[in-house]
């Protein structure tokens, strides 16, 4: 990670470009995370049918891979800059500040969800009950103490040895993936699957993804699964956060390596956690789910998955905060991010409503991706001057701010499900940003023409 952010204010030099295999490993490791234990299980609770799940995940993940390949990677390999630095050229340091603040806060919530997942595993050892599906606030003192303790430990360890932890995460990553496979395989007999797999399809359709939503849960169909798989990492591909990774790619085509993360993590791991949750009577309890399926190693795996994925998320939150507090040392920034994360992790709503949170996270940052895309690709095509904020030394690109806030306001009032709002919102942001520039360019040309005549 440190190496990834080595060139934080300058294009990555060609001697630092990485091979495709590196990207395959990076994506495979990053997308088999603690949250996978929750997301796949939630599809079962939301009554997704087997057919809708398979088709939705296949297509949604394909769209995600294509978004990385055709939207994020080309801009990254052309500019060789992080989004933070490229956005500064486009939107000015003022808007970059606000974006970084929003990003840091959203990362902290995500890391908080990972701490909560770890807490479900450790809570088993202390007999601490986990909150129920509709809990917003902490339901017991035990849960608060547990998440606080885990959050503080994760933060201290991140401060003391982030780099060593990152290397330890490399050890954990393939094992955690196997834990998903092993857990799913081991609970199949309990669900009634024969050793020759002959009745697997019928069990999958009737006992796992049977199309019946759990009490109080909304019913999901093909479109929900497809859109969720696509926008699950919206901030990273369409939102362009992963420019930080792809600026090290030799070629933009390396975006296709994201398929290793999508089809191992967001396809196989989600299917496996769905099977595991069905075996414990559809209870949203990742720790118990893994313990029942794999024993002590399973519960340990859930704890480690939370730890090793909260660690880089804390680091990313710290990096975003560093834009706001440039003179702070790394430990101070990580401590701030860690304390905020720890406080947030107590609230079960961030973990029990993880799917909605993921949707909101992508939605909030998506307009920035549209603004950068418009500036990078559409402006040269239409003859609009690029990087006006930088050239005119503007602290704040007001048009970008109007588009960002305006798009979010429109998205709030869109008359359809939260999951489907980002796409029309993205198109709206793209068009409105271009139109605002065309209008202001026309106005400026008219003013210049009037001056010439006078």
């Amino acid at each position: 990670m440190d190496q990834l952010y080595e060139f934080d204010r300058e294009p990555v030099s060609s001697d630092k470009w990485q091979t495709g295999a590196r990207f395959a490993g990076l994506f495979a490791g990053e997308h088999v995370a603690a949250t996978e234990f929750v997301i796949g299980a939630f599809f079962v609770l939301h009554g997704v049918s087997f057919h809708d799940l398979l088709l939705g995940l296949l297509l949604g993940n394909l769209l995600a891979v294509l978004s990385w390949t055709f939207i994020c990677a080309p801009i990254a390999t052309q500019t060789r800059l992080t989004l933070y630095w490229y956005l500064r050229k486009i939107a000015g340091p003022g808007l970059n500040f606000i974006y970084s603040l929003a990003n840091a806060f959203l990362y902290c919530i995500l890391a908080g969800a990972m701490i909560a997942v770890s807490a479900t595993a450790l809570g088993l050892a202390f007999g601490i009950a986990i909150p129920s599906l509709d809990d917003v606030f902490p339901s017991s003192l035990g849960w608060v103490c547990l998440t606080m303790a885990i959050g503080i430990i994760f933060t201290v360890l991140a401060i003391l040895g982030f780099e060593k932890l990152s290397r330890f995460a490399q050890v954990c990553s393939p094992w955690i993936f196997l834990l998903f496979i092993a857990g799913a395989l081991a609970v199949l007999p309990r669900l009634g699957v024969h050793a020759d797999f002959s009745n697997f399809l019928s069990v999958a359709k009737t006992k796992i993804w049977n199309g019946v939503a759990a009490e109080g849960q909304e019913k999901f169909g093909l479109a929900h699964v497809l859109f969720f798989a696509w926008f699950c990492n919206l901030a990273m591909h369409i939102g362009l956060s992963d420019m930080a990774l792809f600026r090290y790619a030799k070629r933009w085509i390396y975006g296709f390596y994201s398929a290793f993360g999508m089809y191992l993590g967001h396809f196989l791991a989600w299917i496996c956690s769905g099977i595991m949750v069905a075996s414990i009577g559809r209870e949203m309890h990742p720790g118990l789910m893994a313990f029942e399926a794999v024993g002590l190693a399973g519960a340990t795996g859930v704890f480690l998955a939370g730890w090793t994925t909260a660690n880089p998320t804390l680091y990313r939150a710290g990096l975003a905060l560093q834009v706001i507090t440039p003179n702070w040392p790394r430990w101070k920034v990580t401590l701030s991010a860690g304390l905020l994360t720890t406080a947030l992790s107590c609230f079960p709503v961030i973990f029990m409503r993880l799917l909605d949170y993921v949707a909101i996270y992508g939605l909030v940052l998506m307009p920035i991706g549209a603004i950068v895309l418009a500036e990078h690709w559409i402006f040269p095509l239409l003859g609009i001057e690029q990087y006006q904020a930088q050239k005119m030394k503007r602290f704040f690109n007001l048009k970008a701010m109007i588009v960002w806030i305006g798009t979010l306001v429109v998205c709030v009032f869109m008359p359809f499900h939260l999951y489907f709002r980002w796409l029309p919102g993205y198109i709206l942001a793209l068009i409105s940003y271009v139109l605002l520039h065309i209008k202001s360019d026309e106005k400026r040309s008219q003013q210049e023409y009037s001056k010439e005549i006078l």
Partner: protein
Amino acid sequence: MRNAILSTLAGIGLLSCIAAPILFFMGKIGETDYKNAFLVASIVWFLFATLRIFGKRKG
């Protein structure tokens, strides 16, 4: 040489992690045996993979 040995041992641990649930699913071993085997195989993987990864940087 040291890395090759550590990689092989770690690989055996990881393969055993997947072999145990397969054997349980096929009914060849019981649930307790499968869970114990997975735990031991996991310890083997973590021990040798950690030694390999942390040793490599020093060398």
